[in-house]
């Protein structure tokens, strides 16, 4: 019920005094009310819930968090002070350690 889907604003319009947008959800376009994210512009990503944009997605935060999570395995290995053993040695092609 509290589902909100991220979509990209493709155009802006007005519906009897209410700011609206066409929002593209991976190929499907629907109208969304922009009254609660008046700062949103064409090209921005917004979270849409029951036809209302409730939040503008902060791209910088999204990139930063995602990169941190994606690199987590390398960071953990550094923390542990153990060599990464899932990849073959670039020189010999052998695994440095046996893969468990």
């Amino acid at each position, binding site marked *: *019920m509290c589902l*909100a889907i*991220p979509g990209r604003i493709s155009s802006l319009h007005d519906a009897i005094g209410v700011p609206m947008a066409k929002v593209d959800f991976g190929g499907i376009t629907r109208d969304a009310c922009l009254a609660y994210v008046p700062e949103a512009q064409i090209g921005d990503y917004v979270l849409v819930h029951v*036809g209302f944009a409730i939040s503008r*997605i902060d791209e910088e*935060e999204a990139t930063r968090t995602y990169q941190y*999570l*994606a690199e987590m395995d390398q960071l953990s290995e550094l923390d542990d002070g153990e060599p990464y053993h899932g990849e073959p040695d670039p020189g010999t092609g052998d695994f440095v350690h046996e893969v468990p």
Partner: protein
Amino acid sequence: MKYLDEYRDQRVAGNLIEEIKRTITRPWVLMEVCGGQTHSIVKYGLDRLLPEQVELVHGPGCPVCVTSLETIDRAHAIARMPDVIFCSFGDMLRVPGTHGDLFKIKSEGGIVRVVYSPLDCLKIARANPDKQVVFFAIGFETTAPANAMSVWEARRHGITNFSVLVSHVLVPPAMRGILDSPNNRVQAFLGPGHVCAISGWTEYEPIVDRYRVPVVVTGFEPIDILQGVLLCVQQLEQGRAELENGYARAVQRKGNAAAREMIGRVFRVCDRAWRGLGVIPQSGYSLTGEFSAYDAESRFDVSRIHAVEPAVCMSGEILKGLMKPLDCPAFGRECNPENPLGATMVSAEGACAAYYSYGRHLVDAHSLAAGSR
């Protein structure tokens, strides 16, 4: 799709699970508050990927599930009236009242319309000036600004053949109710990301302080949920109880100011009865006096309808995190999505319905593990 696909990345999920395994040293009980999170957890089998020490219990955050039987009976009474067009979100159609559901009312000649947005009701009202258009305004804080806007716009445009049956619920009072329960097992919460996109997290800070319980604002994709679990486990293991935001791309501390302002114009906080949990003080919204003319309950005089919840169902215990769906002897037998006995089976986001939809009653943990080898 951007902001969806990358949060379902298997490799990143694996990293997070490994980090959780590395961090955890003893058992912890975490509750995900929101029904959308429960649905994701069961759909992707996240609970089965986590180390055994992490127990996820499912919270009361499905507004369809917790709408009281009494309110549903009142809604159905209005929907049966002649010259009424009854509008609802689709999730509400199958929810049984004392005498059937909205599908049954439709089959018997009632006019029931599913709407995507509350603003669609105003279009229907304009196109049908000889009918009364009634919107079943349910939801948590996430949905309140949209529902409030429909009432605000109705007044602004002088649309008088429109009214709302309001059954709004609020998350923080339900969390306090769970923590106050003498049997409470919950040690940390995955906070409801989209509720917090509206309300922010300042209301949760006193809960963290008073109950010394970590709350991590969490999104809905598998990576979001695993990140929420990791942040909770780190706090618990380190003896910390803090409010953390694991959904920074969508949620800010003070939420959405414009949305909160609209809620404050149209709604006031009131006591609310929750299906399976009973009355929780100051746990819902109703219309302010200024908008009482749009209150369907008084317009159609249905407040005299009362209903008693059947005692057979254990959904109250499930909503408080004291039991799991598989603990209930009726689950998957006399209680199923076609014939739900209670709150948590009535909506797709209810814990019991999610377990049923993804076959948890057919496959137990051991056979699943054996099959994957």
